[in-house]
């Protein structure tokens, strides 16, 4: 019995160590572009918010899918929540997970909405997957 229990505990330890709880923001509809410089960040981002852009030009946010222009009210609400918590929206980090085949103009439009006066996000991060083209 003892060897079996030993092995089972080792398997549990293996899976526990390799388990990534931060996968929640990843979506299988998004195929990230590859970059050999894409290394996981050393420090955690302040007030991170992930916006995912599909190749057909829709944004995934908070479990909903909408056109790029439709994200504005959601972001206004996010900015208001931050202000109510006495945080400046400028401190928040917007992480853009855009599909490799998405249009660059749509990515920029999305960033433009985030920057608008009523929202006021300023820090942007473009996410890529580690690998070589």
């Amino acid at each position: 019995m003892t060897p079996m229990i030993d092995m089972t505990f080792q398997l549990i330890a293996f899976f526990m160590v390799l388990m990534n709880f931060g996968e929640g923001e990843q979506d299988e509809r998004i195929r990230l572009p590859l970059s050999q410089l894409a290394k996981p960040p050393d420090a955690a981002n302040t007030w991170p918010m992930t916006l995912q852009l599909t190749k057909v030009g829709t944004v995934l946010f908070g479990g909903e899918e909408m056109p790029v222009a439709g994200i504005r009210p959601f972001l206004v609400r996010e900015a208001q929540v931050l202000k109510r918590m006495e945080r400046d929206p400028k401190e928040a980090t917007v992480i853009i997970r855009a599909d490799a085949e998405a249009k660059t103009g749509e990515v920029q439009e999305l960033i433009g909405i985030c920057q608008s006066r009523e929202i006021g996000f300023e820090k942007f991060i473009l996410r890529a997957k580690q690998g070589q083209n």
Partner: protein
Amino acid sequence: MPKIKSTTEGEKIELQMTPMIDVVFQLLIFFILSFKITTPEGDFNIKMMPLGKSLQTLADEIPAPPLTVRLEAGSDGQLASLSMGDRKLKGFDELHNIVLSRVGDAGPSGAEEVEVELDCDYDLKYEFVVEAITAVSGRVQGNAILPLVQKIKFASPRKAGG
């Protein structure tokens, strides 16, 4: 003085292993089912042209003009041409070499001073933008990443025919 004799002396206490094994197997199944191999993801910091600022204000804030990299899209969103200023480039390797020499020429703080602006077509596939950012922002040497340009920004996207 009377001696207390244990009546259970010599009896073997048997541990109940079954509930523990049940729980352990349930944990094992949970971890196996929720296990997913994912490639690590990395980040690129970018600067966007602030809204509501005049070009003159921007010119005052930025001491040296940025290196402008133009990425033109073909009809299918693929990269049709890559250029820096008036110079047409053969590929991202050439772009990387040019940026490397500019950063080297700018001295020890070159990586912080040199700024790159990406001027892209609206319909260009985003993967080419990330490829351009990769070419200008650093290179891999062994296991380490040597940083190049850290200030990367976007110009307003150009729509086809506009």
